[in-house]
Every structure is written in C-alpha cells, then in structure tokens.
C-alpha cells in the first residue's frame, strides 16, 4: 500500500520493497523516530499519535498523487503509525523512487513536509514524571 495509517510497527525494509521497480535508479527514504526530548515534565518516554482517519487517508493520497506528478515519482510510500509509540520507534516513513536521485530527494522531502503540514494527525506526549502534556 502506498499510503498507510496503521497501529503496527513500520519497517523501512518493507518500504524499500515497496519502492522497487525497474529503471528507478534513485530511492530516497525519510524515517521519523520518537525522540526523548527533554522538557519541563521530564524526558518523553512515549508518544501517542491519533488521526482523523478518513480525511487523513484522503489527504495522504492527494500528497502521493502530487509527488508522482511533480517529481516523476514512480513508487511512493507514505506511512504513518498511530497509537502508542515508545522512544526510538518509527512514527513515519516517507519514500520515493524515481529515475534520478535529485528528484527522489525532492519527492521524499515534499512528502514529509506536506504530511506534517496538512494531514490530520496529532501527537501527544507521555513524559516520565508528571503524566500527560499536549
């Protein structure tokens, strides 16, 4: 699946398989991982991601279509995990396979920036210490 919202762990190896294809010389993949950011309530121990599912999937598909058209991306993955994630786990994978490397980089960058700015997904932090913080 090109776009995914899933509560199962994300795998970059799976993403690479989804990005295979003849003639695709450049594959760029971005993976976001949960960071143990310091903060007033102590370091983050986990994040909870939730999504407004139907609009989020529509928006992910729209981003994918634009990446295909604008960057000649022949294979795209745009996967986001939801639910509870521990520090170090992968929250998002954005990847593109193109005939050439410059467009693969541009496409992957576009995918992740657009996802962050426009897809109805939220994270809330769980910190060691005072419990919850948005």
């Amino acid at each position: 699946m090109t776009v995914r919202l899933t509560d199962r762990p994300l795998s970059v190896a799976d993403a690479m398989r989804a990005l295979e294809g003849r003639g695709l010389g450049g594959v760029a993949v971005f993976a976001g991982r949960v960071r143990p950011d310091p903060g007033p309530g102590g370091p983050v121990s986990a994040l909870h991601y939730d999504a407004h599912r139907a609009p989020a999937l529509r928006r992910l598909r729209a981003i994918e279509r634009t990446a295909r058209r604008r960057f000649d991306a022949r294979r795209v993955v745009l996967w986001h995990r939801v639910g509870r994630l521990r520090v170090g786990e992968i929250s998002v994978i954005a990847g593109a396979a193109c005939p050439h490397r410059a467009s693969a980089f541009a496409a992957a960058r576009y995918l992740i920036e657009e996802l962050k700015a426009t897809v109805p997904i939220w994270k809330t932090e769980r910190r060691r210490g005072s419990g919850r913080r948005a």
Partner: protein
Amino acid sequence: MPEGRVTVLLFGPAREAAGRTSVVWEVPAGGLRAEEVVAGLRARYPRLGPTLDSSRYVRNGRYLSTLTTRLRPGDEFAVHPPYGGG
C-alpha cells in the same frame, strides 16, 4: 449514528484537554450552529479553551470556513488542533 444528534470528535491536544475522544451532542428543535457546539465545549471543558482557539473545524470531512454553519442530525463535527504528524 442516531437521528437528532451530532458526533463531536476530539483529537490530539483537544482529546487530552477534554479527557475524551468524542462527545454526543443533541440537536435542539431550533437547530444547531457550529459556534454553539464550540461555545458548549468551552463551557463544559475549561482546559479546552486555548486549543479551541487554535483549532480548525471540520464537518463531515470538510473544513468549515465559518462557524455559523448549521449542523444536521447525523453530522460528524471534528475539532482539528494544529497538526502534529511526523
């Protein structure tokens, strides 16, 4: 979704502040505008105020450009705080 009600969905910081993911809202005989739901949420969940101020609102999957929009029984009305995916 029963007739006579709107389902209000709360996400991310809104869910955290209200302590719940959804609220069922009765549509009174005189009808219901989006701004009335927002005012009602603000009154019922005081910690939700700042989040409501920075949120956008979505009716049946479409962003609302104005909160004077009328909601109909069966509608899904969602509070979208600033997005935080990635």
